[in-house]
């Protein structure tokens, strides 16, 4: 967070002259809510002070009628002091280090497409989006396309339309029985006679 803070607000101005001319304070309807939120952020921590300060825990007392008496583990006093001390010291250290890196030495982070190593994984959000696309999105699209092409159009449509085509084909054959052409009637008679003679020969 302090990296963000120092880079954005402190150090040298990294934009061009045109942007510098247009820099201005945000309008009132943005700053008032920010002010309110800032005050609440500052005060909010006092709603739940650690045991060692001896003040009542305002927040859990407020919820007590609903939650009832919950059993809380009490850590030892020295543990609490140590925890507070370590986190405050770590924070001060980070403020100092980031300030020296980004303000005093004026270091600018590399743009996202040029990062190397593990930072690259972080810049690409652990590649979760790409993983999701590979596991769910692309297979689903491929399955749908396959289903549309081979099952919907290729199988079911062919079966249903097949009834129609089959009937057309059958009627195409059957129409030869009644052409009105004497020649073809005589021809069929001849075929019939040959078949009858053949059958009487066999049986």
């Amino acid at each position, binding site marked *: 967070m302090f990296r963000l803070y120092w880079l954005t607000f402190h150090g040298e101005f990294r934009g061009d002259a045109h942007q510098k001319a247009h820099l201005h304070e945000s309008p009132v309807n943005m700053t008032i809510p920010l002010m309110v939120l800032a005050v609440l952020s500052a005060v909010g921590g006092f709603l739940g002070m650690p045991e060692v300060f001896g003040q009542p825990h305002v927040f859990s007392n407020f919820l007590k009628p609903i939650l009832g008496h919950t059993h809380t583990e009490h850590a030892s006093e020295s543990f609490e002091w140590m925890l507070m001390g370590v986190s405050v010291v770590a924070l001060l250290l980070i403020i100092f280090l980031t300030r020296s890196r980004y303000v005093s030495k004026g270091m600018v982070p590399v743009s996202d497409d040029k990062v190397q190593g593990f930072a690259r994984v972080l810049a690409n959000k652990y590649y979760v989006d790409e993983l999701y696309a590979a596991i769910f999105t692309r297979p689903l699209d491929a399955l749908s396309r396959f289903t549309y092409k081979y099952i919907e159009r290729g199988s079911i449509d062919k079966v249903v*339309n097949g009834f129609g085509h089959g009937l057309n084909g059958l009627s195409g054959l059957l129409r030869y029985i009644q052409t009105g052409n004497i020649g073809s009637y005589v021809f069929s008679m001849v075929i019939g006679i040959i078949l009858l003679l053949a059958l009487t020969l066999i049986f």
Partner: protein
Amino acid sequence: MLTLLLLLIPLIAALICPLVGNAKVRQWAIFASLLQLAATIYALTLFKSDDANQFLIDQWWVKSLGISFKAGFDGISMLLVLLTNVLIPLILISTHSREQSYPKAFFGLILFMQFALVGVFTALDGFLFYVFWELALLPIYFICMMWGGVNRTRITLKFFIYTLTGSLLMLVALIYLYLQTPGLHTFDIDALYNLNLSAETQDWIFWALFFAFAIKIPVFPFHTWQPDTYTDAPTQGTMLLSGIMLKMGLFGMIRWMLPIVPAGIAACGETALILCVISIVYASCLALVQKDFKRLIAYSSIAHVGLIAAGILTLNVQGISGAMIQMLSHGVNVVAMFAIVDIIQRRMKTRELDELGGLAHNTPTFTILFLVILLGSVALPLTNGFVGEFLLLSGVYQFSPWMAAFAGLTVILGAVYMLRAYQKIMLGEPNVRFAEFTGLHLNEKIVLVTAVAIILFTGIYPKPLLQLAQPALDEILGHVKDIY
């Protein structure tokens, strides 16, 4: 008496259409459909959920054959007739009178179709049901043939013959059932409900009836007529087909299959349910790779009604009440979606997703209306689609958790293809041809705003609709439990 009125208003209006001039016939049709809607709302106020067969007409038609003209309302019929009479005015309003060729025939056919549809939903005699079922097929055949796209002859003929084949099997089953009725045979529904059929008989009758309804709904693998027919038909034809006509198949399952062959469903229903669930995922997967937006919605329609059919076959109260409510939701949503397709196609002259893009930049109203209707289709909570899908999935879960998990994929895949289509059409770089996308006309606004209002209202407060059908559903389920 009211039933007769609701049947006669569209019929007489349709017959008057040729006498009205070309310029006025659209107004006449809209007026007649609104009159029908008013009559329906009046019937709704008089309707009591608990009584079966209200506003009954019961006259002998062909006494020697035991065929009577018996039509009446119960909760399920009331809901579906309400759906029909709410959607037809919207469908008529979505037409553009200046560009309509042969308007007298077109509007007359739509009104005639309304007559046939109301007849299907109210018929209480097997033969009458079959007559109205086939009657509904005629106007849609002409609508698709005369005003359809390039391949309309081949596609409409395929649709017609395919559906007729299924209906033929249904007729065979109905005649067989008729012959089983004791004494003087009759087609009366109460007589058919009280038949005691052996297990083997129930099996083959179940398959005959299921085959007919499966082609109509459609269910995999009998669905191949649907994408072509929906894509090639004129917008109003597609709206009629997807909004109301396919509900005929689902209604037939609830009214004419469940109480007559419950043992058959218990024995063979699982296979049929598996087909329905396969249909859901199959159609959703295919919708992912469609390039034509209208065809995409056609495939999404198969997916949605597959779930409804699966819900009906579960034979539990959540499944069937979910089916009822989803029939209404799907009807409204799909009609609205096809209206949107029509709006886009009229202006941009294309429905290809790759050619469209960036339309959101100067069409704020249309963008928002499109999004709400799309979210209704995707079954977002607070929309009507969610109520139905939730009940259906819970019904299927009671039948089998694995099937519910598989069917639940429709929620995910539905969101994927719908949102992807929305992104490709509306979002992205501003379209270079944006000037061609003129503002919404009044009639288009009426259709879309009404649809959005229904989507949100029914999504937030579906109780009246559920309560309307509950006693009728309980009675049908009682029938089912009695026999098996």
